[in-house]
């Protein structure tokens, strides 16, 4: 048995492996980079070894450092998780050399499977159906075009080594080929240190089905049914499920047999995944194409010699713990009975929660997750983060996987959507709304899913969902009321006096919020007995407003005859709301504009006026001296605070900076020029484009 396991990974998968190890009484070691010093997986391991560095290349990809960490801590096994070094044969070989158990297949198997061209060749030889393709490393121009023609357009360009969709591109026209191959080479080189690329026939909107296999060191190979990973974006999986709707019992048997054959062909050991592309139209027979197409409508795509991100859906429908089985197999144990006799039970759906903004081109998001709570009965959450976690830009923006298991697909999808919709995700923008939009979309529920789902249904529309038109107003009202309660609760004087009490009430209490729907101005008044007497947003009363309870964190508000509970969480001037109408992030506008004294105009004065005042005032030399530096040119746009001119006087340098953002209309001095105190040095005006 393994006594001490080093987990050579980070985030949710590191925590997942640690959990399995703890459950088996195995001591644990984490390795971590500098940005991960406060990460949950580091705290949860018994011991941790700093790798230093920031980027993956400086940290988690450092083979020698990982192996040294294992030796230093006396770990007798290394689990690589997925990504990073998971499929690097050198780690497996390095472990073997040091007498450390590598939780994964032997280096020889990794070498074969990691070379996609070689893997395909082996699979084809073993009778597994494969897609036509060609290795194009070193090919250019006409040779490249000829290779593409042999494969047949459209083709997919992809890195020979590595995975995760990095560098993948679809080429439909011969003219696009060279650029796509060059780009793929660059990306592959940067990501995996090897720029080998290959072309492969691209199937329009194929279904993506993968089969989980499990092999022990005694030659026993079983499959644990299929997963479907059909909703993707840029070839990154988003929603995964098991079993696949496109697979009937017969196809399941054929897919399983093919996967077992594939694993046997390479002498696989451990948990792995064999990916197949399923032609649209389901499990029909072969439809023309080059002679390599021999399967029943499915093609071997690649084999992943690691635990998959989406392994929990298989665990849900089989009731197995795949990481535990990995550790057992790595320790030389034969596959246990429950794995050999696994059966399918119900349906499981997994959604990947990413720190990225689907409404803005899936831009990765960074920041502090002030709150991270995904808690719903019957839903599994594999998260790498928790309350207060800092999400950086250096690694994959996957925050968590959320998995629902239910007797039927519709129930599982509904449960998962509800869990995500109700999750408390504060501080970092996520793809949660998109996931909920997908899971509740009629096309998804009807099983009309393939890898092009997000092309047919634009992510921005899915993410927008069906919002109650009153949600914004109610959220703003609830935020104002909760903030009021928080101020009362924090009052050090007169804490029991009714909120906002006036002897002669006239104006409402007012607060303005900025949210997705623009500025919302809330007005409210409490009566002498503490009851809500008036509640309006943008001057419009909320009909029948009645406050059942109102605390700093919870507002139970009835409007229009419907009572709803809103959870409110404040961080600085940002109010996060969660409730039956969804979630909102509202920024409270300051009551008073903070600005430097003497900066000029009354609130609401035009920027032109301010710039003009500034030109007359602050942009003058503060004392007589010599111009040492002119940092701007006329016409240049500058931000507030930008350095304009440096004047040296009395042996000191005086920086003259822009009091507001704007355009430099004029520079009135030159370097070396003597200036008098109060002499204007530059004139700033309002920028044309605001």
């Amino acid at each position: 048995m393994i006594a001490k396991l080093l987990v050579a990974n980070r985030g949710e998968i590191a925590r997942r492996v640690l959990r399995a190890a703890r459950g088996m009484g195995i001591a644990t070691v984490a390795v971590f980079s500098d940005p991960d010093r406060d990460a949950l997986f580091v705290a949860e391991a018994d011991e941790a070894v700093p790798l230093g560095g920031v980027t993956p290349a400086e940290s988690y990809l450092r083979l020698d450092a990982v192996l040294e960490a294992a030796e230093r801590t006396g770990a007798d096994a290394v689990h690589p998780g997925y990504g990073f070094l998971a499929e690097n044969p050198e780690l497996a070989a390095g472990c073997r050399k040091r007498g450390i158990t590598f939780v994964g297949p032997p280096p020889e198997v990794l070498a074969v499977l990691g070379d996609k061209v070689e893997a395909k060749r082996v699979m084809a030889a073993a009778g597994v159906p494969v897609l036509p393709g060609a290795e194009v490393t070193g090919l250019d121009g006409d040779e490249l075009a000829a290779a593409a023609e042999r494969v047949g357009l459209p083709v997919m360009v992809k890195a020979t080594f590595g995975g995760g969709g990095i560098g993948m591109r679809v080429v439909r026209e011969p003219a696009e080929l060279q650029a796509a191959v060059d780009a793929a080479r660059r990306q592959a080189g940067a990501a995996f240190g090897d720029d080998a690329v290959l072309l492969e026939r691209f199937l329009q909107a194929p279904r993506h089905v993968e089969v989980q296999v499990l092999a022990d060191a005694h030659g026993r190979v079983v499959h644990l049914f299929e997963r479907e990973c059909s909703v993707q974006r840029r070839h990154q999986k988003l929603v995964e499920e098991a079993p696949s709707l496109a697979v009937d019992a017969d196809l399941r048997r054929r897919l399983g047999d093919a996967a077992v054959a594939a694993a046997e062909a390479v002498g696989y050991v451990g948990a792995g995944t064999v990916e197949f592309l399923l032609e649209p139209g389901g499990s029909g027979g072969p439809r023309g194409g080059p002679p390599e197409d021999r399967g029943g409508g499915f093609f071997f795509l690649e084999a992943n010699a690691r635990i998959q991100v989406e392994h929990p859906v298989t665990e849900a429908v089989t009731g197995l713990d795949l990481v535990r089985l990995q550790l057992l197999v790595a320790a030389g144990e034969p596959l246990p009975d429950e794995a050999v006799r696994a059966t399918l039970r119900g349906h499981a759906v997994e959604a990947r929660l990413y720190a990225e903004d689907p409404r803005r081109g899936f831009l990765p998001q960074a920041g502090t997750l002030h709150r991270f709570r995904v808690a719903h009965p019957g839903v599994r959450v594999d998260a790498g983060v928790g309350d207060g976690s800092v999400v950086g830009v250096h690694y994959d923006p996957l925050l968590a996987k959320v998995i629902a298991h239910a007797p039927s697909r519709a129930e599982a999808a509904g449960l998962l959507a509800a869990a995500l919709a109700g999750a408390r995700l504060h501080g970092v923008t996520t793809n949660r709304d998109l996931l909920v939009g997908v899971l509740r979309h009629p096309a998804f529920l009807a099983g009309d899913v393939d890898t092009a789902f997000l092309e047919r249904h634009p992510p921005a529309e899915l993410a927008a969902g069906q919002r109650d038109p009153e949600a914004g107003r109610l959220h703003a009202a609830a935020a104002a009321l909760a903030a009021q309660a928080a101020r009362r609760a924090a009052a050090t004087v007169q804490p029991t006096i009714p909120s906002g009490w006036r002897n002669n009430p006239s104006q409402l209490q007012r607060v303005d919020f900025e949210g997705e729907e623009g500025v919302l101005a809330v007005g409210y008044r409490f009566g002498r007995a503490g009851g809500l007497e008036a509640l309006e947003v943008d001057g419009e009363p909320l009909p029948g407003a009645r406050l059942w309870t109102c605390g700093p964190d919870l507002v139970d508000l009835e409007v229009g005859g419907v009572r709803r509970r809103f959870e409110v969480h404040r961080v600085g001037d940002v109010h996060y709301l969660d409730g039956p109408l969804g979630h909102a992030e509202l920024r409270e506008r300051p009551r008073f504009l903070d600005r430097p004294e003497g900066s000029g105009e009354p609130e609401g004065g035009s920027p032109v006026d301010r710039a003009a005042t500034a030109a007359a005032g602050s942009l003058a030399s503060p004392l007589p001296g010599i111009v040492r530096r002119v940092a701007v040119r006329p016409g240049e746009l500058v931000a507030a605070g930008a350095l304009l001119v440096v004047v040296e006087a009395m042996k000191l340098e005086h920086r003259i900076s822009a009091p507001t953002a704007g355009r430099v209309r004029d520079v009135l001095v030159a370097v070396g020029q003597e200036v008098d105190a109060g002499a204007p040095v530059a004139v700033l005006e309002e920028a044309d484009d605001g």
Partner: protein
Amino acid sequence: MATGEEAGDEELGGAEMHARTSGLADHLADDEHDCIRIGRRIVAGLHWRKLGPGATRPADEPRYDPDELLGLAPVDLRVPADVREILARVVDGSRFEEWKPLYGQNLVCGWASVHGYPVGVLANAQGVLFSEESNKAAHFIQLANRADVPLVFLQNTTGYMVGKAYEQRGIIKDGAKMINAVSNSTVPHLTLIVGASYGAGGYGMAGRAYDPRFLFTWPASKTAVMGPEQLAGVMSILNRTSAEAAGRPFDEDADRSMREAVRDHIEAESRALFNTGLLYDDGILDPRDTRTALGIALSACHSGEVKGTGSFGVFRM
């Protein structure tokens, strides 16, 4: 002008000049909003703190509905109001520990708290103060000073008792004890005129002239040195006596219209709205706001030290 110098408004005394050149101004605000912003910042940095002990008791709501104060507020001042019912709708948890309940019963004295601030209460149960009530008040005010507890005066008084028997029993001497105690007391006084505030009773119960920290009125209350009827009557007696002494005939018709005029005049000028217009009070309260207003006032009182006195001078015996 004085020196013949010619100067513009701004260069002579403008905000910009004083903020930038003379240094007279500490801050230069762009407008009213900016001024408030700067003011708030200054106040936030004042290191202000309350000197009083602050609220020390549970500040639970009264157990009786304060809305009912509207029905308890005296309207016809000839009908006594039940001050215990009023207190039950003002003080914390409707708790009132009455002191000397069986003696001088026209004046209710006792201990309570409002928004957690302990108070001693003196309240007119019946409008007239006799010797017993005066002595009781003088005694109670001394106790509150020993305990450093603020006093709340609930006024509904028509004054100290008059008449031969009472004068002979020493009502002036006893009233003087009460006035002496009120005058020398140093704990904060809060006065609430719920009904009548007439005559010397209004002074003895910490009326405006006796400088309570705050004085509030209820809308239907009346404040005057004498009641309209009484003043008209006294005027009439004086006129009649003067006519008789001079041997003039007394004009009954003129007397009647004089009495009406005096009565109407005093009636009008004793109203709460008239008095608040003269700033005799610190505001007319909706009776339902009484508890809140007293709480804020007590909080303000506790900004300073709350300290009673032991030196009341000489009580007339």
